[in-house]
């Protein structure tokens, strides 16, 4: 280790910055800029969803009725729980509690994994009910009764949106899980100190963003079905 590396490790300050405050401001601005590009990335899907939902409302309502709102709500709670443990992990890193940082990260991974597991079960249910657009599209029985009034082709469009939006969200979750694993390995070695915890905070911001996307996906996909 060179002298400079030792200095960097002790103070957490990279040499291109004047002080810790400036470094934290730069880290923060960088990840927020990235999240803004992510807003626009998901925004395209949300805009397309808004248009087609307006054009084919009956079909979207029927499609939404096939989803189980209770499973969706339970999964929302699981994901919000993972955001809580993520926030607590960042807090533990800030206070220099290495054990708590690691355990809260692991808890976040477990909750994230549970969310993806439920999502996989739901995807499987779509195959069981034959409401997977293109691949397995042959709704029958109760599903057909829900979908027929809006037109089957338009209902298929709803399920394209369902899979594209939840799929893109799930990919973000998988990437987040990989980042969390990397954090766990680094945190175990004591890489984070109250002066230097930027990676935990940055991954935390990403994780919360993915949570926010779900906060909007849940009502838009599961709850528009007019279940009264």
């Amino acid at each position: 280790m060179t002298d400079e590396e030792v200095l960097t490790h002790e103070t957490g300050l990279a040499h291109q910055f004047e002080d810790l405050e400036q470094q934290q401001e730069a880290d923060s601005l960088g990840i927020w800029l990235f999240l803004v590009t992510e807003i626009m990335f998901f925004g395209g899907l949300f805009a397309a969803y808004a248009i087609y939902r307006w054009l084919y409302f009956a079909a979207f309502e029927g499609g939404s009725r096939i989803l189980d709102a209770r499973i969706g709500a339970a999964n929302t709670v699981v994901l919000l729980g993972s955001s809580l443990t993520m926030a607590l992990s960042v807090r533990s890193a800030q206070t220099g509690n290495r054990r708590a940082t690691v355990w809260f990260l692991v808890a976040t991974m477990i909750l994230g994994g549970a969310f993806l597991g439920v999502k996989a079960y739901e995807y499987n249910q779509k195959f069981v009910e034959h409401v997977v657009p293109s691949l397995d599209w042959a709704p029958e029985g109760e599903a057909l009764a829900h979908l027929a009034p809006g037109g089957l082709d338009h209902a298929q469009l709803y399920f394209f949106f369902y899979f594209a939006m939840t799929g893109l969200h799930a990919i973000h979750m998988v990437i987040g899980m990989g980042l969390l694993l990397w954090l766990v390995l680094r945190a175990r070695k004591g890489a984070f100190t109250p002066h230097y915890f930027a990676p935990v905070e940055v991954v935390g911001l990403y994780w919360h963003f993915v949570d926010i996307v779900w906060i909007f996906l849940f009502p838009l996909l599961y709850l528009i079905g007019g279940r009264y």
Partner: protein
Amino acid sequence: MSQQIEPQKTYIIVFLCLIGLTLLTTGVAFVDLGALNTPVALLIAFCKMLLVIFFFMHLRHSSALVRIVLLAGFFWLALLIVLTSTDYRTRSWTPVPAAWSSSAPPTHP
């Protein structure tokens, strides 16, 4: 990235509020509010988003620069959705000349 450390209690209270709002939005979906169902669901989702952004993502301790970047992001998202919607919703206001409709192939002069 703030140096302020929130008390653990704050995070837990915010989490409980988020759970409460999730249960509320699920419950309201089973009540007939007429045209208001979707606006109410979106309003609740918006409140949940604010809770996550301000507390979990520490925006309440962030600098003005970060806030402006985020506001600009939402502004562009609003442009994307509002302008696209106005296009689709006003297309029917003007009649399509017969020569443009799909049934009549365009004739070149």
